[in-house]
């Protein structure tokens, strides 16, 4: 084989090979620089994900505490958020350091996973703090340079929608943590009316329940929370033609998850409503039952997951 190869190698070819070696050295440097930057960004993105998850757990721990403890919890949450924010500064700095002012878009695949987690965490924080859904503009403002106002990374509508879809999971957990206050029942009232009335049902909330728990701070937040969830559960209404296929797939998957948590809550509410009629004058017993119903629902959910796993 070597002889055959030699047959083709004239002196001109030798020069060509040397010439090629030189140009390919340049290509190699180009690719290497890209690979190194990719590695750095992936590490930063992972760190962002980790910190964001910690922030979410932190918020859940404090969400059902007394008002003063909650305020402290949120304040600490803000500090943690700021810590995560410095990661985005690092990401921006790395991109700017590129010789031709590297475009964010070239590296978005590396940056996005951490950013999604951050959006989830900060939107949850925003919700606990203000009781409202964060807007895309606010997310983008959070992810901007505080002095120049230039975006550190770019948040697209898709990032936002997927992040809000993730948020529903946190809200559901938050709501079920408030089980002792019969939050689930209220959640479901909002859902139920939504289903009954279609898109306009969003605007309904119910305060007639004797268990609306004026004494529990949580209840006041759970209602709008449920409304958001009902609305987000309705992401199906976003026409698929406006999404790219990748995005549509991702959203469909998240929707499944949202629907599952929604059903969990609904079955709890069903049990609660029945008991409510029976034991309307015995709040302590009701509280017990709510807890049991939730545990059952959680167990049923696990069974279901188990079956799915066996398939």
């Amino acid at each position: 084989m070597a002889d055959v190869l030699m047959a083709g190698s004239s002196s001109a070819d030798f020069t060509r090979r040397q010439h090629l070696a030189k140009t390919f050295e340049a290509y190699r440097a180009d690719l290497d620089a890209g690979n190194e930057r990719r590695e750095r960004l992936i590490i930063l993105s992972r760190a962002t994900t980790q910190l964001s998850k910690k922030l979410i757990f932190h918020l859940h721990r404090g969400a059902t505490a007394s008002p003063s403890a909650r305020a402290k919890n949120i304040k600490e949450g803000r500090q943690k958020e700021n810590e995560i924010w410095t990661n985005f500064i690092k990401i921006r700095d790395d991109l700017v350091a590129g010789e031709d002012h590297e475009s964010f878009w070239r590296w978005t695949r590396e940056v996005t996973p951490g950013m999604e987690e951050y959006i989830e965490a900060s939107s949850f924080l925003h919700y606990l703090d203000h009781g409202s859904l964060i807007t895309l503009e606010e997310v983008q403002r959070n992810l901007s340079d505080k002095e120049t106002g230039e975006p550190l990374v770019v948040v697209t509508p898709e990032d936002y929608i997927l992040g809000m879809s993730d948020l529903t999971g946190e809200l559901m957990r938050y709501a079920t943590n408030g089980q002792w206050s019969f939050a689930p029942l209220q959640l479901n009232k909002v859902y139920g009316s939504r289903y009954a009335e279609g898109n306009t049902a969003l605007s309904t909330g119910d305060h007639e329940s004797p268990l609306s728990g004026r004494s529990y701070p949580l209840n006041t937040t759970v209602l709008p929370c449920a409304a958001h969830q009902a609305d987000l559960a309705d992401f199906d209404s976003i026409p698929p033609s406006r999404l790219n296929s990748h995005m549509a797939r991702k959203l469909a998957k998240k929707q499944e998850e949202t629907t599952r948590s929604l059903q969990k809550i609904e079955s709890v509410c069903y049990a609660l409503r029945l008991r409510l009629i029976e034991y309307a004058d015995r709040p302590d017993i009701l509280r017990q039952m709510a807890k049991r119903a939730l545990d059952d629902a959680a167990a049923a959910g696990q069974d279901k997951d188990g079956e799915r796993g066996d398939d």
Partner: protein
Amino acid sequence: MADLAPVPTSASASAPTSVDSILTSVISQLETEQNLRKQLREAIDPIDDLARSAATELNRLHSAGASEHSRICERALETVGKAHPLWIEVGKLLPKGEFYRADRSRPRYNFAISPVARSLVTSIAFARFMLHDELVPAFTAANIMGLGQDETGELQLTADDYLLGVIGMVNELPRLSINAVTAQNFALPVKIAAFVNDIFASYSMLNLRNDILRRKFDSLKYDLKRCEDVVYDLTLRGLAPAPANA
């Protein structure tokens, strides 16, 4: 669950309404981007046509006689050269700083630019090899396809697209080598084998990670082997031309 629904009250009307309007504004942003995507798609289509007709032209190399080769290659390069004004149009549509967004990274923008650029590189490299027995450098390839000048703004030929495009050309060469033998052109297979060998050696210099470029690179060695096998068959039968330096 509808039967459990309470009579609606206006108690929490304000928050949900704002949720609704937030989503509406996000959806309208999606719409704007989708329109842009459509415009870009339409602007790239004619370049795609050029790339295809250049490839079709070059495809005739497999059946045409050796005397026609340079005319075919020149015509193909001429076709590719018409892309420049079209790229300018694409560049105008592209929002500032978003070349890579349109290029590949964003799933929603994963349309045409990269595939078209690769296909153009393939044709250019093919034609230049046949005409000058050289591997066209990335810079020159970008110029020939009209992407090297300032007017095309942020549009550029990326290293990845260039390297992938060249491999696309190498994938064509074993077939050409075999067809050359059929047409009794015994010099071309030797020329091709030496060329592919040089390219393979050059690509071996790159530190590739596990991506599409790496997989395409892996295909090179099979192309090299097929080209060498043809030369072997010729040498065995004393059909290969005498080496120039022997």
